């Protein structure tokens, strides 16, 4: 049963799942890295992306690519508005580290309920973006899943270029390392925060959209991905971009292999095991800065 070919197939499947974890975790880690805020509503941007794409594609009847773009831009705008209504005013007050978490927790519940009222609780699905089966690395895969991995790799490349080589990226890194010094040098910190929050939400939306043909779209679909993203950011190191990417793929592979040893219901237990092990053995994660011992 546990032949090498079978194990290899699981690893490839793990890479597909892991690429989605990575996309979610990149957003979380980006928000944490620039503004030291934990976004508990991140899963809801994943959900909103899928619903907006559904409406644009099947409700309005847009072609695929414009529909996806409209959905991503829509989530970006929603996220920027929510950021300036909730997180931004809290950031300047004492106790913001906790109040921003509480506010995003409230936001996540409100967004779930709003989606429930707008789209209903019926499980819906998007059609596959691409049909067919592709042979990759000796494994037969539906083309949609290959598209997921390809998209994630492309996004990581674009994001790396954005952060390393553009003026916005420079401002973002400046704000991340010292927000006060950055604003003293003329960087509009609030705008960098809002844009970063929007970009992170748009990445979550993208993950929701490309995964929508495979999983059911419903108001609560954002909860499992954010849990996995949490495990990934702890594994990769909170605030570390390469950590989020590699941690995502790593968790996907560990889960896929773990599931063959146990059974598929125990996928979450494997994730919990990874989380607890990391906190015990290497709390700063694979790429994080060392944390201070208490």
């Amino acid at each position, binding site marked *: 049963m546990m032949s090498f070919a079978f194990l290899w197939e699981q690893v490839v499947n793990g890479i597909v799942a892991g690429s989605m974890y990575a996309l979610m975790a990149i957003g979380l880690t980006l928000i*944490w890295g620039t503004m030291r805020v*934990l976004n*508990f509503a991140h899963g809801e941007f994943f959900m909103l992306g899928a619903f907006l794409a559904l409406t644009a594609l099947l409700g309005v009847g847009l072609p695929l690519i414009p529909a996806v773009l409209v959905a991503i831009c829509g989530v970006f705008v929603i996220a920027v508005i929510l950021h300036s209504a*909730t997180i931004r*005013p*809290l950031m300047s*007050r004492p*106790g913001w*580290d*906790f*109040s921003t*978490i*509480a*506010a995003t*927790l*409230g*936001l*996540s*519940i*409100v967004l*779930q*309920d*709003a989606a*429930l009222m707008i789209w209903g609780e019926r499980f819906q699905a998007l059609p596959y973006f691409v049909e067919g089966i592709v042979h990759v690395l000796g494994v037969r895969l539906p083309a949609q899943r290959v598209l997921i991995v390809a998209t994630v790799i492309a996004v990581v490349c674009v994001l790396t270029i954005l952060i390393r080589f553009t003026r916005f990226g420079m401002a973002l890194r400046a704000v991340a390392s010292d927000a006060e010094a950055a604003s003293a040098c003329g960087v509009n910190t609030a705008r960098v925060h809002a844009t970063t929050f929007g970009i992170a939400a748009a990445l979550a939306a993208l993950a929701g959209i490309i995964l929508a043909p495979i999983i059911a779209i419903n108001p609560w679909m954002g*909860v499992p991905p954010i*849990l996995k993203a*949490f*495990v990934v*950011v*702890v594994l990769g190191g*909170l605030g570390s971009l390469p950590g989020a990417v590699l941690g995502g793929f790593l968790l996907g592979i560990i889960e896929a292999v773990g599931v063959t040893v146990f059974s598929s*219901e*125990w996928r*979450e*237990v494997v*994730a*919990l095991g990874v*989380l*607890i092990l990391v*906190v*015990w053995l290497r*709390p700063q994660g694979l790429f994080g800065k060392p*944390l*201070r*011992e*208490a």
Partner: protein
Amino acid sequence: MPASLAWIAATPKLWAFLLLLAAVPAIVHDAYVLQVMCLAMLWTVFASSWNLAVGYAGLKTFGHQAFFGIGAYVSALISIHAGLSPWLTMWIGAVSASIVGALVGLPLLRIKSLPHLAIVTLAFAEIVRIICSNLVGLTRGELGLSGIAPFSAIPLPWGGQVGFGPADRQASYVMIWMMMTTTLIFLAWFVRSRTGLIVQSIRDSQVAAESLGVSLTRYKLLVLAISAFIAGAAGGVYAHFVLVLTPTSAMGIALMVQMTAITLVGGIGTLQGPLIGALVLTLSAEGLRLAGDHRMLAFGLLIILVVLFAPRGLARLDVLIADVQRQRAARSGS
């Protein structure tokens, strides 16, 4: 009054209000009202346990629903399978929750990082819920664990007995009131004890507390264990009060959101906050018939509004009003 009892004199309004609540079953006989009040008092205990960790010790955890659920499930399962009395099993449930709390806290509390605490506790609680719904053979998963015994009847010294089944809501009310009052008395003493003051000094500045020789990990672990114990005890009583458990209702995120809303609306870091919040939110949710669909929406909105506009909650409304008046005075002055 000796200084060792000063903590009693510190919160006279709280004690008066608790005595007032004790009189409710003498006046109200409606089983539905008593049922709602019982739940409100259970949420008070649960929210108080979280309040101790977050409001007093500064441990920003989001996984207390797991301790509540572990207390509930352990107590229910032992009473079903071993035939033990719920009066005994609820303590086993509470101790189990406390042990799990310490096991999770042990690695987690060594590090000072707030986001790690928040992330790991939330993920831990959700994964415990998923495990609980996957163990269908033991817990019956989302089908619900039913057939849980109510608290067994107690014989009265003057003959007869007092039962705690669904028909005896007054007796349940008195029992849950006693539990809540015991919890609040303990917390009132604890937060003014030497240990409690050390714990609050950790909340206010970990660095300062540590520089004065406080062992951060030891005190944090103590608070988490006590807090998980109280949450587990609340869960145990909940199990033998509502008599049916599902992983979503006993340890889901909705439970945590409700408790967070209760604590924040009431006033985090105050003794009376969870009590005020639980009464206001539970009663108004029932009164407005927000039951079911849009209760969660209301809780989510309340959390956002409170952190934005009234961070001290209803318990310290005086602070909020003073702030508003000061702003108004400043505006008219300029």
